[in-house]
């Protein structure tokens, strides 16, 4: 069978992940003006559709996160590098301090390194990069959405994952920390 050059050159197809509001997500939490929703994409068929790769078997769980600023006056800074996570069943873990001064007993989520570990296909890597949640200023009424790629065991049933999302009020520098268990 002959294959046309166009089909040889065609890259993987990615189904766009449907946009969610916080109210649509399986896991939700509020803190002050901030509302956060999280929706893990556990099904490997869904992972294949949205990312053209099965991520669980590579040791990562894609979790769609949406953060909404419901204040009518204040802005909040979301710095992705301050997002932290831990095994929800674990006891005390080593303490770290974020850029904003908040103490975290956790470790950061996989981003760039996750993409390299998940696949060597450049189109798949680029889609993972574009789909990832990124740092942003949440002006009043503004939201940010995208995926976190959370490391999980490659085999067996995963335990609960505790995710901590700090946001800084740009006027007062007060930190709101939103906790979720996925």
């Amino acid at each position, binding site marked *: 069978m002959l294959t046309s*050059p166009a089909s*040889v*050159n065609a*890259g993987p197809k990615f189904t766009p992940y449907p946009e969610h509001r916080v109210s649509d997500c399986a896991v939700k939490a509020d803190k002050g003006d901030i509302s956060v929703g999280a929706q893990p994409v556990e099904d490997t068929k869904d992972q294949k559709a949205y990312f053209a790769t099965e991520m669980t078997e590579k040791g990562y769980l894609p979790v769609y996160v949406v953060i909404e600023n419901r204040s009518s006056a204040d*802005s909040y*800074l*979301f*710095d*992705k590098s301050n997002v932290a996570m831990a095994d929800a069943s674990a006891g005390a873990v080593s303490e770290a301090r974020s850029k904003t001064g908040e103490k975290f007993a956790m470790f950061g989520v996989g*981003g*760039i390194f996750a*993409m390299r570990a998940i696949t*060597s296909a*450049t*189109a798949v*890597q*680029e889609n993972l*990069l*574009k789909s990832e949640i*990124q*740092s*942003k*200023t949440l*002006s009043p009424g503004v939201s940010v959405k995208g995926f976190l790629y959370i490391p999980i065991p490659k085999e067996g049933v995963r335990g609960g994952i505790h995710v901590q999302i700090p946001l*800084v009020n*740009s006027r007062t*520098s007060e930190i709101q920390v939103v906790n979720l268990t996925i």
Partner: protein
Amino acid sequence: MVNSEYRFFSLIAVALFVLCCLPMKLGGQAAQPASQPVSLNAALVLTPEFCATKTKKGTWGINQETFPVGKTACDELEPIIKAAFTSLTLVDDPAKAADEQLVLTPKFVDVGATQKTFAFSDRELTVLIEWTARDKSGKTVWIETIQGTAKRHMGNAFTHGSNVKHIVEDAVKDDGEQAVAKIEASPEIAKVGAPPPKPAQ
């Protein structure tokens, strides 16, 4: 006869369209407000580390490519970002920007590049830059991650190097232009230049 009437009315219709709709369209274009620079003296921090950033994509020995995003960004960003402020000073260290009202620092998040088999196939480059703006006291007032993208032919053995150079330039320029639009639209940055509120009497 019928044919000539048809032509006559067709000409009238075309003339009416030109007279009525074209000025509206032109007027509509002219009515778009030109973006205004923010009334701030700002500094753009391009550190030597930032300017030296290179990203490698693909597999070593097979299809690995190097994208000199740092050098390109340091060549291209300043003239673009200049449009966002009343004045912009270029510094290589945030400590040298102590006199400025706002200090803007870009940081590379990552670069994504697709690869194609054929020279004339379009490939895409995505450059993610995280922009952080701090006020005079050093407080972060604004943070934004911007995806600059560009498409260009993969190129053959002779044109590949030139195509890589141009796709990086286009993606970095796209990122900078989007950054200007976001800066000009940011209420948080506008507040930095605004006079402090008068105390209640």
